[in-house]
């Protein structure tokens, strides 16, 4: 049976070392380039016609656009509209990463925690900067609840701070865990199909169901990742 975690192995395709730093072009990087190219091609080619009554491809592109636009409007409000390009890019990148990983023999870059953490940390730092730019030091008031006795501040403020700092980590870990678990499960079940011979039809049926579930999880996790970024952005902009 094949090693179920072998699929997450990073392999350099074009070895490259600049100044002692390993910057090889890996299979992970290749999939990222493919997904960016696919997203760009999909969005530019499908709306090229600019038809008033959209065709199939244009409708699909508009569904994605409206989905993210509604998400921002519902969670951030009209002020979040100027962050639409970033949120949309984020959503498409994560979504295509999740979906491309479901193609056999391909690679899921969202199953690597450092990739997710890179994205999440960018969002976290950006949101914190936006918060400080819009509210100045008033932004720090967020870490102490109104009406609590001042004596509880030494405990409450560190707890809220830790919970704030753990946001990018929990964002990254959630996407990573969902993707990794799903892919390992698929691989293990796939091993059973081969190992059980004729009886392999049973795990095969289960495998088919799991694959559908994985498509759902790929969509759902891209959605969760993006909506949490929207909520964090809303926090920084409105502060309540």
């Amino acid at each position: 049976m094949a090693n179920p975690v072998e699929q997450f192995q990073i392999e350099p395709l074009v070895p490259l070392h600049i100044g002692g730093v390993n910057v090889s072009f890996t299979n992970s990087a290749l999939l990222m380039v493919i997904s960016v190219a696919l997203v760009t091609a999909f969005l530019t080619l499908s709306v090229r016609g600019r038809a008033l009554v959209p065709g199939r491809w244009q409708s699909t592109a508009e569904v994605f656009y409206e989905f993210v636009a509604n998400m921002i409007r519902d969670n951030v409000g009209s002020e979040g509209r100027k962050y639409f390009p970033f949120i949309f890019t984020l959503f498409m990148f994560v979504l295509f990463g999740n979906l491309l990983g479901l193609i056999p023999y391909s690679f899921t870059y969202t199953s690597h925690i450092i990739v997710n953490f890179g994205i999440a940390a960018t969002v976290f730092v950006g949101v914190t900067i936006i918060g400080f730019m819009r509210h100045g030091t008033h932004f720090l008031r967020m870490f102490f609840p109104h009406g609590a006795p001042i004596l509880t501040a030494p405990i409450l403020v560190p707890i809220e701070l830790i919970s704030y700092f753990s946001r990018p980590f929990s964002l990254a870990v959630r996407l990573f865990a969902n993707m990794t678990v799903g892919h390992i499960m698929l691989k293990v079940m796939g091993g059973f199909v081969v190992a059980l011979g004729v009886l392999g039809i049973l795990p095969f049926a289960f495998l088919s169901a799991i694959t559908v579930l994985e498509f759902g999880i790929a969509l759902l996790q891209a959605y969760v990742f993006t909506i949490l970024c929207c909520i964090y952005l809303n926090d920084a902009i409105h502060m309540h």
Partner: protein
Amino acid sequence: MTDESKKPNLDDLQSRLDAARAREAQETGRDRKHGSGGRNNNGMGLGFRIAIELVVNIVVGTGIGYLLDRWLGTRPWLMVVFVFLGAGAGVMSVYRVAKGFDDTVGLGQASRRGKSE
């Protein structure tokens, strides 16, 4: 296709759209603001979320304590304190997830909003 002379006025269209949306919101009886609830309604997602929140908060708390210790040279005391603070933050996060509050900063504000809804 439509007649050139009957091309719809965009302002008119917008007002009709707004009216239709208001009607829809009234009929379905839900305000689309703060529509973040309702996700993670499957058990696996909820379980994942609780586990991750609990672990990540403790790890981040420990990490902050460790870095502060290295910076201030007070090893290991701040780390011990921050492990417990991280555990507190973890339990708080789990409580928020279990209660279905939103993911904004500050438990007090979130719980007030959760009750008023």
